[in-house]
């Protein structure tokens, strides 16, 4: 609801706006849980990248095709993209004041992270199901 410049409204009406959205706790919790979950997952990812230096394409795909590595890789991608989606949402809400622009940006980046996540997980599964023993 946008007030035009000629409205005469009280400061209380202005700050109360449309009232409380009654959500926010879920987002806050999810951001913290994914942050904590990313500690072991990122350690595993960094360790793996380190160990896989110089391996051939076949060696790499064989490594990724093992169930444990494939599952951890999918969890890593899901957790990272979900956390990134939550985090960038906060940045957009902080800095983009225009409602229409903000809403379009929020929807667009959510779709972007979903698409990216699906693409990466599809790739992992494809390798896991075709290159495995």
């Amino acid at each position, binding site marked *: 609801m946008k007030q035009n410049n000629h409205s005469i409204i*009280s400061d*209380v009406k*202005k700050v109360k706006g449309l009232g409380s*959205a*009654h959500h926010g*706790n879920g987002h*806050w919790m999810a951001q913290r849980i994914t942050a904590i979950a990313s500690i072991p997952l990122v350690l595993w990812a960094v360790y793996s990248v380190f160990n896989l230096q110089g391996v051939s394409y076949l060696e790499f795909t064989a490594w990724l095709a093992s169930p444990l590595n494939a599952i951890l890789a999918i969890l890593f991608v899901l957790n990272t993209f979900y956390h990134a989606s939550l985090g960038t949402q906060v940045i957009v*809400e902080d800095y983009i004041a225009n409602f229409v622009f903000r809403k379009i940006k929020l929807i667009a980046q959510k779709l972007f992270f979903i698409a990216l996540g699906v693409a990466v997980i599809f790739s992992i599964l494809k390798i896991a199901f075709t290159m495995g023993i």
Partner: protein
Amino acid sequence: MAQFTLPKNSKVQKGNHFPAENQGENMKNFKLYRWSPDDEDNPRYDDFEINLDECGPMVLDAIIHVKDKVDSTLTFRRSCREGICGSCAMNIDGRNTLACLKPINEVKGDVKITPLPHLPVVKDLVPDLSVPYAQLASIQPWMKTETEAPTRERLQSPEDAEKLNGSDGKGPAGCILCFCCSTSCPSYWWNGDKFLGPAILLNAWRWIIDSRDEATGERLDELEDPFKLYRCHTIMNCTNSCPKDLNPAKAIAEVKKLMVQKQG
């Protein structure tokens, strides 16, 4: 987008220099922000040279000295001069604090004073606090009960009273609403129309933990909002700037914890 630069007519310019009438050994320069709605001039910093032997030890003493002896048009709020009314909150040497509690000798070099950041200026060092006051009204800072009113005071155990006052007198009830904290918070700068800010959230917390108040759930419901509460990103400027040594950041964290608890 959030606005990061000042509009052209708000750029601060160099102002006038007022040398001290009597030179002495303890001289100090005060750079005071000046702006008047009565003319079209840009804001400016006026330079006041003050002989510290002629005024009291606090920054407030110095600006009262300027108003009394040098330039009576200098405008600022002050009342109790002992840190209990919260009127003389301003930005001194880059930090929001109360002029009456800030010793001049804590400031190295020139003492630069501007109004509380990111609020509209009424005149000189006087900011427009109508939005923060309206936000305070919006959290209904009074006791709400359903139980029939007793014929005497509503009783509270000493332990419960201590939650409000703190064992060291630094509980949430110690807030004097000077708004040093809210106006030091970047989140409040960018979204001050929707984010309630640390001062108001500290006061909301003060009523949420009042053992006599019976509207705890409704108060939490009203606060659960991406903007009203969750614009707080634990930057902690609020706690750093509080001239009464209160901890608004902790109060906000406690509110967020209760939100989690409320979900079961």
